[in-house]
């Protein structure tokens, strides 16, 4: 049987074997939690607690600011010991609330359970927003925005992203195996909010156990499980839609422009908790792995746990770390130190040693065209990158630089090790700056 897929892309070694068989473990609370106010795409939340305040688990500590924004909640009960800029995964100090856990881990009593059957779509959407639900695949886009298609846009299909195409990561895989009922409950809530019937869970074929398990669980719920070819970036929104439905999202458009909403399976499980239990997003599953970690694990972590604490829970470091990546190796963000806290978008923590890295100085483009053949958007990365280097912003725009999804395929495949994605991102920055000026 040929599996569904998209055109372009590549298949890096998936390196998932060291953590794929490890059940999800709850990570104990650290000595202090550092919870940044900026954890999602959009306006950062506004901190509304002060030093000395006692907070309960799930209590709002920062209010949403604007529509594309969500509130931030305390990940455990305890005392606020500082409200100050702390090193953020972005690489600079940004406002954060520091909480010293009291060890009781008490939920806020005002949070109440709901019956999704009794609520209408608007009420459900409000619950999702108030729970601070963002896309847990790593992009952290506020979920309620995706669930609010503007007038005139009709949604006919909900796609659940269980692809997990990034090498090393196994958090979604374990979630699908161990907590399918939360995912299915979330899907039913999402279907009610969007008013759609068709729901498809896309899963890469390298997770046959998850596919079999979900097929069994979903049978009674009219949810289709779609095995997909192992190909990066199968889990990118637009590629997933192409693979599952054969629909193309127009240039500059969103999935809702072709009648689809895509949510990650982890987001789905969080939505179930938010509605059914009334519990906001204060924890997530993250894979801690890489050759620099003694004992790779899938951990259920409280948002704000310093990375060092995660490493300690996994048997400590194996050798001297040379590269720390938050997220997957293809699109994740390199970190300056292990004092950075894990945030809502932290799908994984990867540690590599010097001997695991292949660092070569960038050479000249040899015009081999490999970046063009792997680009899932069918752009010309090398051309856009050359324009970016020469600051020819208008030309870069005419080559559709803004459609780049920054998946990293071109940089991965480039035999000259050119920083193609960074160059394209530079061009995108220039184009956006020019548009703001006009």
């Amino acid at each position, binding site marked *: 049987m040929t599996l569904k897929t998209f055109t372009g892309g590549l298949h890096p070694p998936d390196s998932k074997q060291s953590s794929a068989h490890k059940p999800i473990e709850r990570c104990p609370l650290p000595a202090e939690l550092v919870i940044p106010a900026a954890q999602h795409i959009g306006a950062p939340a506004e901190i509304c607690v002060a030093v000395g305040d006692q907070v309960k688990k799930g209590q709002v500590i920062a209010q949403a600011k604007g529509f594309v924004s969500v509130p931030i909640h305390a990940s455990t009960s305890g005392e606020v010991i500082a409200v100050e800029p702390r090193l953020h995964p972005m690489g600079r100090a940004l406002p954060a609330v520091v909480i010293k856990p009291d060890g009781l881990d008490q939920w806020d009593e005002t949070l109440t359970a709901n019956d999704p059957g009794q609520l209408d779509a608007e009420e459900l959407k409000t619950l999702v927003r108030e729970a601070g639900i963002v896309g847990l695949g790593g992009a952290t886009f506020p979920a309620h925005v995706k669930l609010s298609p503007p007038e005139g846009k009709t949604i006919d299909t909900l796609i659940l992203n269980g692809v997990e195409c990034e090498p090393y990561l196994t958090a979604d895989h374990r979630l699908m195996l161990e907590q399918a009922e939360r995912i299915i409950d979330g899907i039913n809530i999402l279907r009610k909010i969007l008013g759609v019937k068709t729901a498809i869970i896309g899963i890469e074929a390298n997770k046959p156990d998850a596919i079999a398990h979900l097929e069994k669980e979903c049978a009674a719920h009219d949810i289709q499980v779609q095995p997909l070819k192992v190909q990066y970036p199968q889990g990118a929104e637009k590629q997933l839609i192409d693979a599952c439905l054969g629909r193309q999202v127009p240039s500059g458009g969103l999935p809702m422009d072709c009648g689809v909403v895509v949510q990650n399976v982890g987001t789905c499980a969080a939505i179930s908790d938010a509605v059914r239990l009334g519990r906001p997003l204060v924890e997530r599953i993250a894979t801690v792995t890489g050759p620099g970690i003694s004992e790779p694990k899938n951990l259920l972590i409280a948002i704000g746990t310093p990375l060092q604490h995660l490493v300690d829970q996994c048997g400590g470091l194996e050798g001297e770390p040379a590269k720390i990546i938050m997220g997957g190796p293809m699109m994740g963000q390199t970190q300056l130190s292990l004092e950075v806290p894990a945030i809502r978008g932290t799908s994984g923590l990867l540690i590599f040693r010097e001997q695991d890295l292949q660092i070569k100085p960038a050479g000249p483009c040899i015009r081999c065209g490999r970046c063009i053949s792997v680009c899932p958007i069918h752009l010309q990365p090398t051309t856009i990158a050359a324009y970016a280097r020469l600051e020819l912003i208008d030309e870069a725009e005419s080559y559709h630089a803004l459609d780049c999804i920054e998946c990293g395929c071109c940089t991965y495949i480039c035999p000259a090790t050119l920083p193609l994605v960074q160059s394209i*991102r*530079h061009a995108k920055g220039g184009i956006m700056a020019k548009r703001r000026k006009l």
Partner: protein
Amino acid sequence: MLAAVLSIGGIGLVAAAALGVAAKKFAVEVDPRELAILEVLPGANCGACGQPGCSGYAKGVADGTLAPNLCPPGGADVVEKIARIMGIEAVSAEPQIAVVLCQGDNSKATQKYRYLGLSDCNAAQKIADGPKTCPGGCLGLGSCQRACPFGAIEMTPEGLAVISREKCTGCTKCVAVCPRQVIRMTPLAATTHVLCNSHDKGPLIRKYCQIGCIGCHICKKTVPDAYAVEDFLARVDYAQHAQAAAAIEKCPTKCIRDFSSGYPQGSSFASPTVPVKTETAA
């Protein structure tokens, strides 16, 4: 044969006549002064005057909408020529040149991560505020060098931008492109500068740079009039620059430099024949 000659020749005659009429009828009146001014401008189209290029500036001056002393690359010489063309008196602005206020190259200042990306300061600055630990120091990736229309900027082997005092015309292009505002415009006559751009406190600076200003106030105590210390960073008060050199020996981190006794370490520029232009002193 004859028909061909006649028809081609005929077309030629008609076209010539039409062009001749058009040239008279649609002639664009150009102020002769505008052309004369364009002639004396340096022609670098650098944009320092605020116009897109030299012709725009020439037109503005001829119209009387722009002052004649807005061309820094031209200097006093061009101001004088423009004034003569326009038949007006003009005072040239005090000539300014750009100076990189940093000496912390890769041998002296630390990096917080290994940067392997695009060789462009603005691209590097977007990644965790740039690889250099110092928040204000020169990133050394050469964006200013590429922006300079006059070839006045060099990058030392250890990654520090150095601006030639002889070649810099004061067009300010490098100032605009630098993401860290480490390049400043200073009076040409002032040769002594505090070459540091970090407002961090002394103990922190010592951790990441051997040659940064630690805000110790010794320069200000030595020559009170010539220095000002603000937010842990000393600056030369350029109104009193002549006295500033007296504090150079006293500076514990050697971050004050008199360019008349040489450029920062690693620069290939020969010691400038300073004072470069003395006419402003007179």
